[in-house]
């Protein structure tokens, strides 16, 4: 599998991943012997997305909005409650673990915490070689070669193969995590908050690395993050999630220029800008209260209790995702789920 030729990358227009009506509910159980289900956490509720080869989709939202759960469902680290995941034209949402195995190399994940995601007892060389040994058919010499190649690719010295994770800084560990994810020539990489545990100066290095790797290897990314600045920098399209639903999805620049959903507007206005004058001048929308519980999400539009534009209809009817694309090419495919969309000429 490691000998897959690089030329087989699909042309950029091809759909690599199609997620339809994905649902993930976590049951809440009570009782010692006879466990009854007393409630459900609606972590991801009816989410559909499409991802083309070579594209980066940013997933943003506050903690608890279901962005990580969505990522884990796509990679089948979690079982779906409903919906389908089509990867490379194949439905992988119902495959057994065994049948899934050949696909595992195609979709890889980079985790948030570079301290917790690397086994402290294994040497870096072993960590990166593990996927090759499990999935590949290469011999030891080939594996050693590939590990060196991967270390160089992510900007680490190949001499470091025999070191342990604790000998590296946070940024370097995240590079090791990236190298491991790249080992099997994946098509899709799901990066779950890959830079939020890192310091600002190191963050920029890792983002640039991910950018370069995408250009070099033609990777497709799902980039999960809560930092809207970082997401804008890496993404082609961005999906904003709130309480398990996508409330707005749009080409990256269009989302920042013309947010349609009030939640997106509030989220953008809360991002601190490192410029005292601009910060003093701009009007911040401070959202009241916290995100409601996903166990019993609000009726109608889930954002309505915190929304300053909410009217009666918002608490009764759930708004569908509808097209609010602008006239120009750059904002095509701008969808939002709101009864009172902002910034739309009507």
């Amino acid at each position: 599998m490691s000998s897959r030729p690089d030329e087989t990358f699909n042309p950029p227009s091809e759909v690599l991943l199609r997620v339809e009506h994905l649902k993930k509910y976590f049951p809440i159980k009570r009782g010692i012997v006879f466990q009854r289900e007393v409630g459900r956490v609606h972590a991801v509720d009816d989410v559909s997305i499409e991802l083309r080869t070579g594209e980066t989709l940013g997933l943003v939202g506050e903690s608890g909005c279901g962005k990580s759960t969505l990522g884990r469902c796509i990679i089948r680290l979690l079982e779906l409650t409903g919906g389908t995941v089509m990867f490379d034209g194949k439905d992988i949402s119902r495959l057994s673990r065994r049948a899934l195995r050949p696909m595992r190399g195609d979709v890889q994940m980079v985790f948030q915490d570079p301290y917790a995601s690397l086994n402290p007892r294994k040497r870096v060389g072993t960590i990166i070689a593990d996927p090759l040994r499990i999935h590949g058919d290469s011999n030891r010499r080939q594996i050693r070669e590939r590990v060196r190649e991967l270390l160089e690719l992510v900007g680490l010295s190949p001499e470091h193969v025999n070191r342990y994770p604790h000998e590296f800084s946070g940024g370097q560990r995240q590079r090791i995590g990236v190298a491991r994810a790249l080992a099997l020539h994946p098509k899709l990489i799901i990066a779950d908050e890959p830079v939020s545990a890192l310091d600002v100066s190191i963050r920029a290095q890792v983002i640039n690395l991910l950018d370069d790797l995408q250009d070099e290897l033609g990777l497709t990314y799902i980039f999960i993050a809560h930092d809207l600045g970082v997401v804008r920098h890496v993404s082609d399209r961005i999906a904003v999630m709130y309480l398990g639903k996508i409330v707005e999805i749009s080409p990256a620049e269009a989302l920042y220029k013309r947010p349609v959903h009030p939640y997106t507007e509030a989220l953008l206005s809360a991002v601190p800008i490192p410029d005292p004058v601009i910060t003093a001048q701009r009007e911040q929308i401070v959202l009241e209260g916290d995100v409601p519980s996903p166990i019993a999400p609000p009726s109608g539009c889930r954002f309505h209790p915190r929304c300053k534009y909410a009217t009666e209809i918002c608490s009764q009817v759930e708004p569908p995702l509808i097209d609010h694309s602008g006239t120009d090419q750059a904002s095509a495919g701008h969808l939002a789920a709101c009864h009172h969309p902002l910034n739309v000429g009507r």
Partner: protein
Amino acid sequence: MAEQLLEVRNLKVSFRTEDGVVRAVDGVSFTVSEGETLGIVGESGSGKSVTMMSVMRLIIDPNATFEGEVIYKGRDLMSLNQAELRQVRGSEIAMIFQDPMTSLNPVYRVGWQISEQIRAHERVSKQAARARAIELLQAVGIPHPAERVDDFPHQFSGGMRQRVMIAMALSCSPSLLIADEPTTALDVTIQAQILELIRKLKDEFGSAVVLITHDMGVVADVADRVAVMYAGRIVEMGSKHDVFYDAEHPYTWGLLGSIARIDRPKPRRLTTIRGLPPSLINLPPGCAFGPRCPQRFEMCDQVPELAPRAAFDHTDACHLDPTIKRNRRDRTIHPELVEGTNEQSA
């Protein structure tokens, strides 16, 4: 000008470890005036937390050694005994910590924890202290404070717990509030709420605030003056406007450049600070930022003094001539905005 509240003179904190002496804080001096907000910015390991923890005398480690003076309202805090310190802590200087999950005691009710502090410093009845606790919860924006006062910390969300921490810190109307990364663990929308609250309460209670953060955006929002720390030293200090618009130290440039800003056109690549922060056991000779600095020249082999170079109350620790820096700065902070840029490294 307001009266000087706190003066830290040449504070040095080092820890003896198996690998050698860690110079966590290496000669830090600054002042805080009444009612002002000082933002201390720096990456992890730059010594910003250790500095303020030492001011509070909260570091109890037999391997730690302290040097220097911390003058608070004319008294040297470094020479006080535990009983005297207890008078200062809480009632004169209060502190909010980063993680609101671990800084509240999970087995005591929230109201009890607030009134404990009031009763430790003032001779009031339990009932009166409880009534004050409810008032404080109201002041920090907890809905239905009379009912929530008897809740346990786990019944509160992260943002609400941080509000409780703030209520507790303000319970004795301290003259100085130290906030150590108060919003780092929170979502942006909640961060905006908490920063708004700190600003409001500062006006109401008239406390001075020292805000420790790694986020330049947060500083731009709430600070009056800014100190930038690197490897245990302050490398630049001045008014917010000086530091943001007239940054003198190449490290500050790097920090400003590596942020993915949402209010600017997207740069093709983020500016990075090359390399890693130095080990505090073996600091590089001369300027600690030297090995990572693209502007490095011969003089950098000597440790630069923190001195006013550009303006009277704007100090920096960089040997480079301010007039030369003018030309190089914009190229470093946002090369894409400067036309006709050619990559330059020394």
